């Protein structure tokens, strides 16, 4: 199966710096994919490559069936891009700016007002962009990316600078487009930013693709332990292995609490014993590995392998 975006063995060097090293992946229709990595991991470079703004040193890229650097504009008309730190000319108003971009995409002028409404900028449409706040500029940036019902949306760190309510409505818009069959690629520097919105995650580190899969798949591969906290009564604390059985990692947190790092396949077993009749347990909390821990795990394993 071929996706809307195909990247094969792509390498991009800037002088001596290898920004992207031998990366391959394919993005299918109707999927939200997150591109996660630190600053300088190659996320923005990958997006610029997909847009045809820079040429790959080697390897091939195809976006909606076109080679983006070949100067074929058919694909670009069906492509939306929101750059990191989007900026506009300060002298024009919001609706003038959007109308300019609509003309370049050959979209009718009447598509401007509904888009501004969709991102909640109708009240500021007649004001100069120079007077906009960061969040408003970001929304205008999203509006221009949505021009012309794009088949592929490339959003570079789209939610930085948005307050939680805006972030919510932002993800709703993205989800709606995805539902209509668009490919959405979101980049972010932290996995937690994405709040589990992405169906699939690609983790990049120093230009190398470190991990690629759904969050559940990544969790399985990483085999990160689940933390279980038990509130122990009476003298139970003195002889934990007696009633809990042999567990690898456990430690006392304070006079009443015990924390256990349970590997995925041992989790149920530990829970069963802890909830067994006669076990001196008053209360328990199960804390699954966070996205940050998952992300850190993949970065660390790749660093260790170098």
């Amino acid at each position, binding site marked *: 199966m071929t996706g809307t975006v195909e990247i094969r063995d792509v390498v991009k060097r*800037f002088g001596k710096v290898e920004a992207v090293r031998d990366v391959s992946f394919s993005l299918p229709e109707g999927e939200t994919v997150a591109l996660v990595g630190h600053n300088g991991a190659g996320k923005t470079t990958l997006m*610029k490559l997909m*847009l045809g*703004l*820079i040429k790959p040193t080697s390897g091939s890229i195809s976006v909606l069936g076109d080679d983006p650097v070949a*100067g074929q*504009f*058919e694909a*670009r*008309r069906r*492509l939306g*891009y929101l*750059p990191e*730190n*989007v*900026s*506009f*000319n300060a*002298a*024009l108003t919001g609706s*003038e700016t959007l109308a*300019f*971009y609509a*003309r*370049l*995409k050959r979209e009718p002028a009447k598509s401007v007002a509904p888009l501004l409404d969709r991102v909640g900028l109708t009240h500021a449409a007649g004001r*100069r962009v120079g007077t906009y706040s960061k969040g408003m500029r970001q929304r205008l*940036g999203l509006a*221009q990316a949505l021009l012309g019902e794009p088949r592929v949306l490339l959003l570079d760190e789209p939610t930085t600078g948005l307050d939680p309510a805006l972030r919510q409505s932002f993800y709703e818009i993205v989800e709606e487009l995805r539902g209509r069959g668009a490919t959405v690629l979101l980049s972010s520097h932290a996995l937690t930013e994405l709040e589990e919105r992405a169906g699939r995650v690609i983790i990049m580190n120093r230009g190398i693709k470190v991990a690629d899969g759904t969050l559940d798949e990544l969790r399985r591969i990483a085999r990160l332990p689940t933390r279980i906290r038990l509130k122990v009564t009476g003298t139970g604390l003195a002889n934990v292995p007696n009633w809990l059985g042999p567990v690898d990692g456990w430690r006392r947190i304070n006079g009443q609490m015990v924390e256990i790092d349970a590997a995925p396949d041992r989790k149920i077993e530990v829970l069963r014993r802890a909830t067994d009749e006669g076990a001196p347990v008053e209360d328990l909390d199960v804390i699954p590995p966070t996205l940050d821990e998952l992300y850190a795990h993949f970065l660390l394993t790749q660093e260790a392998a170098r």
Partner: protein
Amino acid sequence: MRNILIVARKEIQEGLRNRWVLATTLLLAGLALSLTFLGSAPTGTVGVRALDVVIVSLSSLTIFLVPLIALLISHDAIVGEMERGTMLLLLSYPVARWQVLLGKFVGHLSILAFATLLGYGAAAGALAVTGAEIDAQSWTAFGSMIGSSILLGAAFIAVGYLVSALVRERGTAGGIAIGIWLLFVLIYDMALLGLLVVDQGQTLSGGFLNALLLLNPADAYRLFNLTGSAGVSAFSGMAGVAQNATLNPSVLLAALAAWALVPLGLATLAFSRREL
């Protein structure tokens, strides 16, 4: 073609909004009007040749002002948009880089042409209204003065783009633009004069001097306007030069056009090779 017009339209819109158009038009009109009325005071009434006097003073004004305005609006065109980050978004749209550059050129040139036409036209209009008699020959000379002024502006806009496409920072582009203005408008002529004085007509041939004059768009413009029409050259004190000039107006115009087209082509090339 449509993309070029879309970009040009946006440049004009921006120029109108940030008062560039207004400021340049007012500046040119104000200076042109004061030159027209104050400049003729010491010479008294010059009768039928009133417009020719205006042409002489306005073309001297143009040599200083138009290149400066042109460089001011053009030096920022590429490097400035790149630094602000607006270029990245623009180039992700279905528009080629040469279309962006050409669109900007059309837009900036329209702003300059509008200001020149309106500003200088105001001077001629005022002269006509106050009852000065102007014959057809003077009108032709005046028309070609405005046309060549716009061409001179085009040349310096193109040079400004070339600078803008080559440098990495806005500040550098600004510095180089000022340097170019100083070189072509002030230093070049002084150096040429010094050279001629030192040489005393011994070794430098007329052909070499012609070539040197064509290598500076401002000089090509000056020669075109001050020697182009018999009436004007009489007033500019260039009548002697005009008789001996081996450079005819079409060569001078061609040089000006080349000064617009070659830097524009080079700027397009430099811009298309540039990585974002």
